[in-house]
């Protein structure tokens, strides 16, 4: 009887039209896009008008990180609001029923329960079958299987959803695959989706980054595992500087491709007249080495792989455009944030930050330290090499659980390229110990069983 009543009371709310209090939420997500791969971020080697437009109509968080720089772990965090170490989803994973706990609500489900129409288009890569709508809560779910031109189809599927739901508050996730095709490009394979022209000679390609060389005192384990995993994933271990420059060229072209498709999704909002009442969050599941520290791929905890674009935008002029250097974790912060924007009830167990407050009040200081994680894997095979990064306004402490040198400490203000490992410097002993202890306490407090053995 109680259930029936509850059902009756929730039904009317579903038909309530979108209002300023219940804006639409559009999450645009790319795959493997590092934070700096946008013109608006100062990158002169590519052109991203759509992303730039988002930044010009909102707040671009310049110190935003993923929970774990790998597809499935990062995506499970975004979809659950919990860190991978909490859920156990620390590796890439197939769609399989049974593994996602029923009591761990997924983003779609939370918004469905909150009376929103829910849609998901594009790359999935989550350990839940796309067919299990009762669990993920996305009533409209399309284009999740690998196909040629996946990304090209995504705007079209998004447009249909937007058109059908223009009168209802909705949550839509537009999940693009690029610039992930850089993985295929790097090993000389056909790209998964589009076709890319041949790279020009190296001297016409972007220069090598300042931090291109492998830094001194780097934990050896990260390079050793490249050997274990092999050339398919890390063909770059044999790259010449010239090849790296071409890699950077190709990467930028793939970012530009996805930018074009993002533009189409944004156009649909305009086309159906809901541009002004839609909060847009733009981000990526993780970054890419992009030749920094001679790294392609992700997983490593350097800035290129771990830091991602994060823009909150609304095309109604309500947000004064700016950048914000508060630490953000897209994995745990998105659900609290979109709940904050919409009034949809946030599950109590979520610990992330509601950034809608920060949008409303730029002076708020909601976080001074962030901990993110990694677990090296050979695709779906975990290698047992775990790491954590503790990031503050100025410093970044990285620690792995294996090897002789396990730690790195960088002063990001002076050394944004993470070249000088201060962990080996006596003068930084105090900072190092403080970081070490902070992580231990943090792990204890948060139930993270990571042990560096230090």
């Amino acid at each position, binding site marked *: 009887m109680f259930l029936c009543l509850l059902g009756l009371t929730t039904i009317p709310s579903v038909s309530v039209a979108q209002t300023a209090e219940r804006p639409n939420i559009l999450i645009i997500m790319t795959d493997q896009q590092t934070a700096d791969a946008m013109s608006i971020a100062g990158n002169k080697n590519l052109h991203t008008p759509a992303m730039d437009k988002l930044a010009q109509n909102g707040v671009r968080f310049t110190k935003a990180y993923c929970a774990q720089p790998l597809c*499935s772990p990062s995506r*499970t965090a975004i979809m659950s609001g919990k860190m991978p170490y909490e*859920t*156990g*989803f*620390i*590796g*890439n*994973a*197939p769609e*399989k*029923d*049974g*593994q*996602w*706990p*029923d*009591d*761990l609500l997924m983003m779609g489900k939370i918004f469905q329960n909150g009376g929103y129409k829910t849609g998901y288009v594009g790359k999935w890569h*989550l*350990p839940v079958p796309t067919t299990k709508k009762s669990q993920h809560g996305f009533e409209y779910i399309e284009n999740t299987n690998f196909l040629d031109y996946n990304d090209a189809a995504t705007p079209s599927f998004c447009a249909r959803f937007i058109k059908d739901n223009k009168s209802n508050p909705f949550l839509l996730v537009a999940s693009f695959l690029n610039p992930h095709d850089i993985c295929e490009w790097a090993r000389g394979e056909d790209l998964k989706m589009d076709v890319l022209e041949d790279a020009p000679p190296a001297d016409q390609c972007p220069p090598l980054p300042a931090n291109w060389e492998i830094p001194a005192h780097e934990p050896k384990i990260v390079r050793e595992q490249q050997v274990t995993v092999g050339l398919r994933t890390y063909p770059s271990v044999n790259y010449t500087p010239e090849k790296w420059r071409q890699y950077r060229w190709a990467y930028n072209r793939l970012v530009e491709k996805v930018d074009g498709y993002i533009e189409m999704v944004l156009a649909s909002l305009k086309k159906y007249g809901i541009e002004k009442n839609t909060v847009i969050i733009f981000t990526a599941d993780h970054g890419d080495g992009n030749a920094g520290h001679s790294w392609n791929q992700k997983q490593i905890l350097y800035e290129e792989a771990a830091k991602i674009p994060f823009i909150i935008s609304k095309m109604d002029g309500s947000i004064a455009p700016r950048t914000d250097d508060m630490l953000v974790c897209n994995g745990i912060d998105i659900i609290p944030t979109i709940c904050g924007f919409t009034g949809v009830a946030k599950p109590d167990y979520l610990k992330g930050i509601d950034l809608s407050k920060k949008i409303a009040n730029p002076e708020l200081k909601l976080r001074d330290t962030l901990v993110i994680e990694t*677990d090296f894997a050979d695709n*779906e*095979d*975990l290698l*047992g090499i*775990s790491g954590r990064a503790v990031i503050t306004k100025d410093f970044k402490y990285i620690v792995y659980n294996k090897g002789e040198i396990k730690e790195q400490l960088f002063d990001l203000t002076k050394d944004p390229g993470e070249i000088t490992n201060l962990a080996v410097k006596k003068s930084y002993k105090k900072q190092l110990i403080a970081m070490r202890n902070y992580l231990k306490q943090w792990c204890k407090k948060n139930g993270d*069983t990571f*042990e560096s*053995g230090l």
Partner: protein
Amino acid sequence: MMILKKIITLSLSILASNAFGQQESATIQLTAEKLHSRVREWPYPVNGITVPTNAPALLWPGTNGKEMVKPMESGSTVPEDPNIGNVRYKVMLARDKYFKKDLLSSSEQRWAVYPLHQALKPGKWYWKYGYALKGSNQWTWSAVYDFVVDAKYANEKVAPPIREVLKRNEGSHPLLWDMNRIGEDFYRNNLDNPEAKKFIVFAEKLMLAPLPTEKPQRIIDTTGKTPLEKKIIVERMYHGFGDAVGNPVRNLCIAYQLTKDKRFILDAKRRALNIANMNPDGLATGDDFTSGAVLEALGWFYDAGYDFLTPQEKEQFKNIITLRAKRVYNHLPNRFELHVSDNHVWQITLRNLAIATVAVINDVPEAKEWLTYMYEVWSARFPVLGTTDGGWHEGNGYFRVNFKSIIYLSQMFGDFSGVDYFKLPWMQNLPYYMLYTHPNGAATTAIGDMWENVPYIVKAEAWFADALTYRMNNPFLNDYVNGIKRDHPNYFHGTDDYLFFRLLNYKPNRNLPTSSPALLPKTRKFADVGVVAMHENLAQADKSLSSYLFSSPFGSSGHGHASQNAFTINFKGKVLFGGTGYYSNFSDKHNLLFYRTSKAYNTILADSLNQKIGEEGYGWIPRAISGQHIQYALGDASNAYGEIKSDFWLDRFKQIKVVPNKENGYGESGVTLYRRHMLQLDGGYIVLYDELEANKAVKWTTQFHCPYYTIEGENSANANQQNFTVKTDLGNVNASVFANTPLKMKVHNKFFEPAVNWNKVTDDVGQIKDFKDQWHAGITSEAKQKFRFLTIIQVKDGKTEVIKTISNGNGISHLQVGDWDIHAQLDGEKTASLQVFGKAAQSLFNYGNLPIIFQGKTHKTKITGSSVLLEMEGNKVNKQEVIDELPDVAKYDSK
């Protein structure tokens, strides 16, 4: 050292005493270094325990006059202590500690067992033992020990003293099997026995065979082999030679006794003389087994054919019998009786010696001492291990090697003593052990040396079980044997080694009522040997699911393996999960580094290190529950890990120049707790819940081995869960392992040490074995001091179910699979808890501190930490609550 020993003793005894009465705690933690020592290291009975008999056997550690007798055994290269014959013992027993009241004082003896041959009055008894060196009358006495005899055992029959046994054997030949008394009845009784008739036809053919010469049974190339390998290969070349030449002699004697036809006994004589002339130091009849078989055959003929021998021939037989008998006997007193189970002797040579001894009992002066010794050890130790549950501690691969001796020695000593050894508690439980651990139509338990040779009921098992029906009245045993006879009619061709026993006990028109094992509980615990058998349908094991949990108080003794808390699973009679690797020899690298190690078993490694081999690596089974829909067993292997202590096994490593170090899988891993809860649920589910703790953080690896099928790993989304499937034509099988931290799975088909059949071992039908690769899965945790694994194995005819994760809060995983709801606390820092509830089955199992709500009502356990099973019996809730219960050895025979 002495003080330390006392502390250990004290803590064990306090804990042990809790098991009897109002046990406060549900859990017992054993602290003893071992429960059975390889040779006796402490006296029995002590500490005021109430013995489970009115005539206990007093046992004490042997001495050579200087120090305790150390482990030595036949087949080992550890040299025998040359001084074991230097001492003699005496025993004093009385009802007061000053040895005044009802004093019993033994005569001097060379061995360290003293079975009472009279019923003791109920009440407290005190005893001590003393020893003196040869030629000295200075006696060194032990401390005074005490025990209690309960009045409830007052009327038990007691085996008579040896003088009565000797007196009974004072008649004329044939003495064996009481033949001088029953010979005529034996002859008449079997005149119309169809089996006897068939046998006589067979014996006719035997006479046509040429006389054997001292040649190998099989030729094996020894090129390029090490001296040790050569020695082992030569033994294999002649393995079975003794039986091949000895059995015809025995069979012809039997044919004579069945027919009184002299042709048979004369041909027996011709053959007996032939083997009497074989070189006792030659390769063919020189080792303990071949020489023993010859000894037995010579005894048979000397006794049955005594009237057909000339005085010179009698002398010749007596001489060679004495020579070969001494070769066995001289190594026994003050050694064999102390040994937990000296395999070769109990398996074979004790029987060989007993038969030969009785044959010459009145003709060879030393024979009376031999018989006295054997009778005393038999009375004190049979069934070898001081157990009552009917089980065998080495697994079933080697159990069968003991069958012939069990049957014939029980018959023989029963003839002498009037005690029906087939009525001992162990014997009465034996049919159940066989039925539960090796049901007809199915493979045996996949554990211990040579289990792989028993994928179905083999001949020895069939004959043994059948033989037991001649002396037991057990309808389940009769049903078991009927099934075997139905399925293996070719086994019973009337010429097997058990034929004579059947002839001795032949009754025309035997009435053998049967009962279906479906009437028996689905689960049975054999605590003394550490086995729990759980069956979906014991009456049709060939069509259903059977699972087993092992944890042995004997550790990996003899042919037993370091497989404490290992499980095995049989489905439709085939081994799905079991031990892997292949038996060849103790002194073999694959054997010592894989086959008998924990690495080969479905149990857990700590930092990739095995349990220790030897008696010190012991486990035990604290709990089991037989339910309608849920079967339950709890194993404890907390004491199984650490450095190898057993000199016997260390010597085996030395022999092949391998060091049992960490690289080879041995060493201290710091494990302090390993309790494995295992449940078999209706519908084809096995659930394992492991409580693990060490004195430091270790990586725990839970292992799965499929001896016959392929394992395929499955990628798992959640690193805290690992899954694999087993490719089998039996049905659909998969397993999922859960933890609260990331796990890493490795699936492969490589042995830790390759298996090479260098000594050409054969299967039960004589085919040289092909040591095929087998599949293994290991799932390893991060380094954790306290850890839990939860495993769900699905074994189904139809599709396996998706295991749904309902929630993961506070470390408690709530999973749903099929009709079953499972809650398990996976955080090692929190109280261990497991709850399993079946909606359709209306059954609930609970362990730990989760609230118990069953059929709408809240239930409470009587004792915290117990295991409870709630099931519906009609409209009534049937509650079974169990706490830890020690095996008999820890109850009665602890230090």
